[in-house]
Every structure is written in structure tokens, then in C-alpha cells.
């Protein structure tokens, strides 16, 4: 067994994907449909629906990405991972027709990240999956850019509702750039004290009131 305190989760596609990234941790908990290709001895207690000692070969169960990745090996058939629906051919056709109509938050919310991770598991469909998520990103890009650049100081929840987590991060980045510029243009661009300093002052004030 590895003596490290963690199994490094190689990157998704987020901005700062890493061991400490919350998005990456959440992504690694996404559940995947799997089929056991071998018997899992004495792990029957994990399967609530049966009371056998072992989990028999051929059992279908859902596993989080990090478990599936840890157990998966190309040479020794331990388990087969099925492609989640949103990456299968049916949905790929929908995305191909018009990627903008899909609610990627409901279908994801880690559509791009999980899709990239799925490529770790051998499948003849992998090249098509990789191509589909790239084209989806490109196809949806214009709308994300335009909406993020035209929404100064207004409620944006409706705009981001149907965006995948990665797209939301991009949307926020677009808003930040726009807002910073418009604040500067209106003359409110004075550097502001960081939240930390403000909170500290408040705390000091509270202390004095005691």
C-alpha cells in the first residue's frame, strides 16, 4: 500500500485543479455506474441489497470516481466502468445539434471535468467523447462570453443557472474583468481594504464593547 496520505487525483479541467481544490474533490465523488468483473471477497456488507459475504462477479453498482479509478486496471479485469448517459451517443447527437439548449448544470455539474476523467477508462468511444466535450465547449463559448460581458451590476443567477461548474468559473472571471473596468471608469477604483482587515477592525470594535 502506498504510504501517502492520499491518492492524488490527476487533474480535471478546472482552473487550479489540485489536491486541495474543492471542485476537484467534489468531482472525484461523482458516482459512476460500474460492473464488477471479479468477485470482491468479504465486502458484501457494502451492498445493502443483499446479505451475502462476498460481492459476486457481475454485480452492477455505483462507485465514486476516486474508487473506480483506484480499482481500475487495464490488464487485470477488476471492474468495467460504464459511460454515464450524458456522454453516450444519444446525448452526443443532441449536443452536436445545438449545445446551447442543454442544461449542463443539471446534466453535470462537472460535465467537462468528468468527461475528461472518463477517458482514463478504456473504451472504443473515447475519441468521440473527447471530441464531443471539446465541441460542446466551443459551441457554448460565445453565449458565456456575451452574457458575462453584458451584465454589469445585475442579478446573474438566471444566466448561470444552466452552466456547468467550469463554465460558471469562466463566467465569473468575465464579470470580474468587466466590473473592475466599469468601477474604474466611474471613478470608484480606489483600492479597498481586504475583507480580512475589515473583519479584524470589526472584531476589535466588538472587543472594546465588552
Amino acid at each position, binding site marked *: 500500500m502506498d504510504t501517502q496520505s*492520499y491518492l*492524488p487525483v490527476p487533474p480535471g479541467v478546472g482552473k487550479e485543479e489540485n489536491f486541495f481544490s474543492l471542485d476537484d474533490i467534489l468531482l472525484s465523488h461523482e458516482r459512476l455506474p460500474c460492473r464488477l468483473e471479479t468477485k470482491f471477497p468479504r465486502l458484501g456488507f457494502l451492498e445493502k441489497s443483499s446479505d451475502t459475504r462476498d460481492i459476486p462477479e457481475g454485480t452492477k453498482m455505483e462507485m465514486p470516481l476516486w474508487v473506480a479509478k483506484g480499482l481500475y486496471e487495464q490488464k487485470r479485469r477488476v471492474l468495467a466502468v460504464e459511460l454515464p448517459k450524458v456522454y453516450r451517443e444519444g446525448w452526443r447527437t443532441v449536443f452536436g445539434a445545438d449545445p446551447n439548449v442543454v442544461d449542463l448544470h443539471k446534466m453535470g455539474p462537472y460535465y467537462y471535468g468528468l468527461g475528461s476523467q472518463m477517458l482514463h477508462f478504456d473504451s472504443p468511444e473515447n475519441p468521440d467523447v473527447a471530441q464531443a466535450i471539446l465541441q460542446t465547449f466551443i459551441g457554448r463559448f460565445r453565449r458565456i462570453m456575451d452574457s458575462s460581458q453584458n451584465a454589469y451590476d445585475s442579478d446573474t443567477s438566471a444566466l448561470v443557472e444552466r452552466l456547468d461548474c467550469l463554465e460558471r468559473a469562466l463566467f465569473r472571471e468575465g464579470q470580474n474583468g468587466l466590473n473592475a473596468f466599469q468601477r474604474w471608469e466611474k471613478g470608484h477604483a480606489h483600492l479597498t481594504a481586504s475583507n480580512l482587515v475589515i473583519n479584524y477592525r470589526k472584531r476589535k470594535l466588538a472587543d472594546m464593547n465588552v
Partner: protein
Amino acid sequence: MSDCQSDHSDENEDVITPAELIVKLEEAWLNEKFSPELLEHKSEIVECVMEQIGHMEENLQRAKKGDIKANIHRMEIDRIRFVLNSYLRSRLQKIEKFFPHILEKEKSREEGDPSFLTAEESVFAREYLANTESYMNKVALKHMPPNLQHMDMLKAVPKPCLDTFVFLNVKERQENILVEHETDDQREYVVDLERGSQHLMCYRTIAPLVASGAVKLM
């Protein structure tokens, strides 16, 4: 002034004017701000600028209050100090972000190769590593089973991503700069960079040009 030597002894410009020095500082500042990785330190420039400011401030102590000339000098000093602080701070931020990799790079440096860190930055980076490790240990790792108490910082902290895109302005003309390697459906993609032109491209391919000063980031 004459005691300010240029940082490249192989070039024929041994003496640079204070004005050129300020230009170099600003360039170092913007390059550091926009490059994804920590660049080689420019302590010669920093020290010369500090010296200039020191001289000036000494002279200003003799100035009368409300002297318009002294006022102008003080404003200039404030502006230079801003750039200097921002430059040094952006380096510290990168050290905090990439400390294990920066220290690793320092370790594998050949004898005689220039260091990327100043002596002070090097102390800062090592202390930052030690503090992070002892913090992780105190709050989490020591509560883990013994075989899981080790943590490899090189794996836990992401490396700087050199494939990121940057904006750049060309100072010296360059030919045949590689944009993309040859692939199955595409021949090698190269461009010429004309002096004064501006480009958006991958940092990895032009990193040596930033280091040599042939291009500047913007």
C-alpha cells in the same frame, strides 16, 4: 549612476542611466506579473533603484517645507516605490503558490548557474515550506494512521502551468518561433515576431525570449 552596472555583463552596455534603470524595473515588474512561473530575480536592478531612492531622500532632508521641487521629487519616489513593492510582492505571491517546485528547482541547480531566488526569498521559501508542513501535520496528518502520515508537497501543490497563454510585445525581431508541434493533420506551425508587434501565444514557447529580454509581457 556609474556604480549601477547592467545585469548582463556579456553585453556592451556596462553603464545605464537612472532613467533606463527605472524602465528596466517596470519591465521586470510587468514580466513577473504576467508570467505563470517565477522568473530569475533582478536584485541588481532592485539594489540600484534602492540606492537611487536613498540618495534622493538624503538630499530631500535638506529641503525646506513646501518646496515645490522637493514635492515633485517625493511624488516620483512614491511612484517608484510602488512599482518596487508591487514587483517584490508578486514574487512572494508566486513563491507562496509554488514553493515546493521552486525549492526543488533550486536544489537541482548546477553549481555556477544563476539562482532564481535572492538570499532573502530563499529563506522565505524554506520557512514557508516548513510552516506549511508543520501546520498540516498538527491539524491533520498526526491524527492519521502511521502509514498515512507522510505528505509529498511536490504532488499536493500544483506546478506552474507553462502552457498558459500570454500577451507579449516584441523588442527584438525573432524568426521561426514555434507555435505548435507537427501533428498528424498539420505541419509545424511557426511565426516571425516583428519588432514592436504584439502577440497572444503560449508561454512555454517564448519563455526563453522573456528571460533574454527579447520580448516583454503585457
